[in-house]
Every structure is written in C-alpha cells, then in structure tokens.
C-alpha cells in the first residue's frame, strides 16, 4: 500500500522530535547549573524552541498518521499536490519560526511565541489538510468513530487557532481578565483537538491490530467520543481557577472536568485487552507503544483529575506539577501513540526485524522507566513548591528554588536518559522506514527470518 502522502509528514515530525529532545535537555541545565548553560540562545529562546519543536512533532505526526490511515482506508482520493503544498507551508513556517527565535524575535503567546505572521502559513496548511480530509472522508460510508475524531480534531484546531490570535485586537487585549480567559480557552481546545487526531489514530491502529472492524462503530465508542468532545469544549476553566473570571466559568470547568472520572473508571474496568498473541507479534512495536500509552493515560489522568479539583489546584497551580502533567501527557500519551503510528506506517513490513531487535526492546523499557522518574521528580518539586506558596510566611523565591535542586537534578538526569532513549527509538523508526523502502525488501526478508527466530528465544 502506498502511503506516499503521509510519510513525508511523519519523517519531518521525527526530525522535530529529535531536535526538541536536545533543546529540552539543554533548557533543563538552567535549572541545575545555569552558569554552564550558556548565554546564547538563553532560556527565553530555548524554552520556546523546545516547546515549538515538540508541538510540531505532535501536529505533524498526527497529520501524517491521519493521512497514512486515510490512504489505507480509501486509497488515492486525496490530492497529492495539495498535501505537498501543505508540507511546504509547514516547512516555511518552521524555518521562519526557528530563525526568529534564534534572533530573539518573539511576539506571540505561550507555546506560540513567534510573531503572528508565521501563524498564517500554519493556518493555510491546516486548511489544505481540511480539504484533503474532506475528499477522502466522502468516500467512507457511515463513518467509524475515528473518522469523526479526525474531523473534529481538524475543524476544532482551525477554530481554536484563529481564536488564538484574537489578542491582536485591542478590544480583547485591553481587558486583562477576558484576554487571559480566552488564551486558556484556546490552549485547552488546541490540546483537545490534537488529542482527537491522536486518539482517533490510536483507535484506528487498535482496530487494525485486532482485525475487528466492529469496535469503531460501537455505541460505547461514540459515547466516549462525545464525552471527549464535551471536555474539549468546556473543561478549560480548570486552567484559570485563580483568575478573577465570572464564577460560572470556573464552575463549568470544574464540573466538566469531573466527567473524566468516567474514562478513568473505564480503564480500571477493562484493563486487559483481548488481542491475540499472533496479532501482537505481527504488530510488535505498534502494539507495545499503545500498551505503554494506556499505562500513562491511567497515571496522568488520575493526576489530571485531582489537579482539576480547585481545592487541590490551589497547591499545584503554577508549580512543576503542571509541568509534570504537561510533559507526562505529551510524552506518555501523545508521543507513545505517535511512535506506534510511526512503527506501523513507516516500518510497514519490518515487524520481524523490529521484534528481534534487542537494542530497541531494551530502549523501549528504559524510556518507560526514565519517564517515570522524570515525572515523579517534577511532581515532587511541584508539591514542595505548592507547600511554599500556601505557607503563611514563605521564604524568598530564590531560597525556595534552591531547596528544589535535588529534584531538579533527578529531573535533568532522568531527562537525559529519556531523551537518549527516545532518540534511539526515533532512529529505530527511521531505520525501519529505510528498510521498508522499495528495494530493501529482499534484504529484509533474509534478516527478518533470523530476527524472528531470535525473538522466539527471548
């Protein structure tokens, strides 16, 4: 099956991930030994470079995954030139954004700290995505739930991304509270939108692995989708409990967030999935990464729901508990699913090679363990800061930060291991892509047989 439309997006996404990991690691040095971190480009440029790279990994990876899946579903109904133009617009935006960061030209908001001019090519690229999606989706009879999720992700991203620039109008900017509320409404919806793209992909992959087309059309699947959509629209009040917004916004955020208990309990209820051994082997890494994502959903969702209770949020807000949540979810959930998609779509015929690869298997486990330490140390730092910010007579900021140093060392150390592991896994995905390329098939066959024998011994 030709996946020529989606693959360039996935490869670019992997490159953004690799860059983002190195930049994050560099930024973490400011926490433990700022004197060694260097003056250039400085934390104020490294943080946006890290976060933007990571955002682009997620958005481009999701775009590529949806394209690959649509190509598998309906074949050649999408426009390749439109997809190429979409890719080119992204390339222009990414080039411009990193160039301006390096020149310390900012001007945007958190997560989108570049000049609003660069948002234009991104918005245009997204419009082309919508057009291509519509062409493919028209060919699909009675949409399974994941097609709904992709549609939702694409449409709502576009809406929220436009809303993200309302601050350009003085009408909004002159009103600090409303402006802040809208900014976090936007951030909540953007996260929700890319989650729709990625969860949809996860659903699609699971259906392929299980060879069971029924699950994508079940009532339960649709109920879960609508609950997710409901949260995308209305749960963002949990970001701004301390901002003096009208009361109904905060209550809406609180009440809607609590509906996530349904997801949480459902995970507890059917933990074991019913995938056969043969299928697991056939989709070796895709399956394993989806299982990892399940575990991380469990941990992060538990934490996120607790953070959404205003009484607890008072302690965690503005602390590294939020960072633990932000990175815990984007790494543990989004990136794990994207890795599954990379191995499935890019590594197509390389299952035997991958399953028998000792390095990749060990690295996979190391990544999960490092992420756990990374997540726990950020949480510990956050809780300690939370106690400080609620104490009646707090020490000065600098003294408090010095007290968090041990946790920051653990964070940076685990981060180094995690970054290395993820780089190796990205390398594995690229290697599999290379081997799956036309012409490499014969060589793969020979190696694959050996690898399969080896993996049976394990």
């Amino acid at each position, binding site marked *: 099956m030709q996946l020529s439309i989606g693959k360039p997006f996935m490869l670019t996404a992997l490159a953004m991930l690799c860059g983002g990991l190195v930049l994050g690691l560099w930024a973490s040095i*400011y*926490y433990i030994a*700022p004197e060694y*971190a260097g*003056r250039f480009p*400085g*934390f*104020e*440029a490294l*943080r*946006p470079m890290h976060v933007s790279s990571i955002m682009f990994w997620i958005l481009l990876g999701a775009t590529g995954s949806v394209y690959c899946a649509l190509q598998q579903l309906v074949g050649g109904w999408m426009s390749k030139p439109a997809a190429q133009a979409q890719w080119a617009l992204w390339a222009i935006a990414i080039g411009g954004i990193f160039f301006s960061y390096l020149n310390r030209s*900012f*001007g*945007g*908001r*958190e997560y989108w*700290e570049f000049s609003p001019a660069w948002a234009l090519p991104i918005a245009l690229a997204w419009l082309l995505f919508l057009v291509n999606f519509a062409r493919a989706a028209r060919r699909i009879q009675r*949409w399974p739930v994941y097609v*709904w999720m992709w549609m*939702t992700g694409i449409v709502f991203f576009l809406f929220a991304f436009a809303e993200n620039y*309302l*601050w350009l109008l003085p*009408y*909004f*900017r*002159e*009103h*600090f*509270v*409303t*402006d*802040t*509320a*809208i900014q976090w*409404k936007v951030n909540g919806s953007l996260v929700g939108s890319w989650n729709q793209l990625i969860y949809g992909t996860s659903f699609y992959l699971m259906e392929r692995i299980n060879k069971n087309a029924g699950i994508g059309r079940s009532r339960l699947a649709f109920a879960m989708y*609508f609950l997710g959509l*409901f949260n995308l*629209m*209305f749960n963002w009040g949990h*970001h*701004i409990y*301390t*901002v*003096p917004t*009208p009361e109904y*916004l*905060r209550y809406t955020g*609180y009440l809607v967030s609590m509906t996530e208990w349904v997801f949480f309990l459902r995970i507890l209820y059917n933990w074991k999935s019913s995938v056969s051994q043969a299928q697991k082997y056939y989709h070796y890494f895709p399956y394993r990464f989806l299982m990892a994502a399940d575990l991380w959903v469990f941990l992060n969702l538990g934490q996120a729901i607790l953070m959404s*209770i*205003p*009484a607890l*949020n*008072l302690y965690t*807000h*503005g*602390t*590294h508990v939020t960072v633990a949540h932000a990175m815990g979810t984007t790494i543990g959930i989004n990136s794990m699913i994207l890795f599954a998609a990379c191995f499935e779509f890019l590594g197509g015929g390389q299952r035997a090679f991958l399953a028998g690869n000792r390095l990749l298997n060990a690295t996979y486990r190391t990544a999960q363990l490092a992420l756990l330490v990374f997540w726990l140390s950020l949480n510990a730092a956050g809780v300690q800061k939370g106690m400080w*910010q*609620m104490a009646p007579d707090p020490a000065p*900021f600098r003294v408090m930060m010095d007290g968090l140093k041990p946790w920051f060392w653990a964070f940076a150390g685990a981060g180094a291991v995690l970054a290395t592991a993820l780089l190796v896994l990205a390398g594995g995905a690229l290697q599999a892509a290379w081997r799956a390329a036309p012409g490499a098939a014969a060589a793969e066959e020979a190696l694959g047989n050996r690898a399969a024998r080896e993996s049976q011994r394990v």
Partner: protein
Amino acid sequence: MKPLHFFLLLSLAFLTFSFSIYLQPAIEAPAGSTDTALAAQGRLVWQKYNCQSCHQLYGLGGYLGPDLTNVYSAPGKGEAYIRAFLKAGVAPMPVFDLPEEEAAQLAAFLKAADASGSASPRDFIILPTGMTKRK
C-alpha cells in the same frame, strides 16, 4: 439521535458559550484606574521580550522565575523596582535594556495585571464543594 445531530448540537452550545465570553469586555468596565491603551501596548512588550518564558501571571507561564501578577503593589517593590530589575538582571534573568517608551508600557501592563486582583493562592478559601473562593 444520529452522531451528526449530536455533533451539531454540541457545536452550537460551544459557539454560544464562546461568544458569551467574547462579549464580556463590552459588558464590563475595565478594572481600576489604569490606562488601558498603554497597558495593551505593554502586553505586546511583555510578549516581545518573552518574559512569559520564565515568569507567570496568575500562575500561568514558565517556571524558572517568580509570578509577577502583583509585583507592582508588593511591599518594597513597585515600578522603580521593576525597572531596576530589568536594568540589572539577576542570573538566570538576562539584562533587558528597554527604551523608555517600552519600559513605561510594560510598567502600565504590570500595573493593570496587579489591579485585576491577587494571584496569591493564600488569598483563597476552600469551600466544602472543593471549589475555591477569593477571601
């Protein structure tokens, strides 16, 4: 009910909710006696130098530096203190040598942020429902 109907219904509710928020500035008068136009310019200065990569307003932003929502009215701090901090820089905060115009706009922005309320979690009480409320 078909998925499409459900989707449209939710989307309608979402749009209504969104527009009710967009209209808020038109309904409410801006807080305090701040110069809103100057403060709105100051918001752009704040973004131009990416203060948000290290600092928070109402707990939102980067985490390397302290929250600045109420630095304008904090005892012993205030506008002169902010200006001095920008000129001196304290590791890891770099020196920001802003032109006078930008410094004034930034100060107006921080003044407006401060006038909007207290960001300190200590100024909240916890209700039996788990909700919090400004003291």
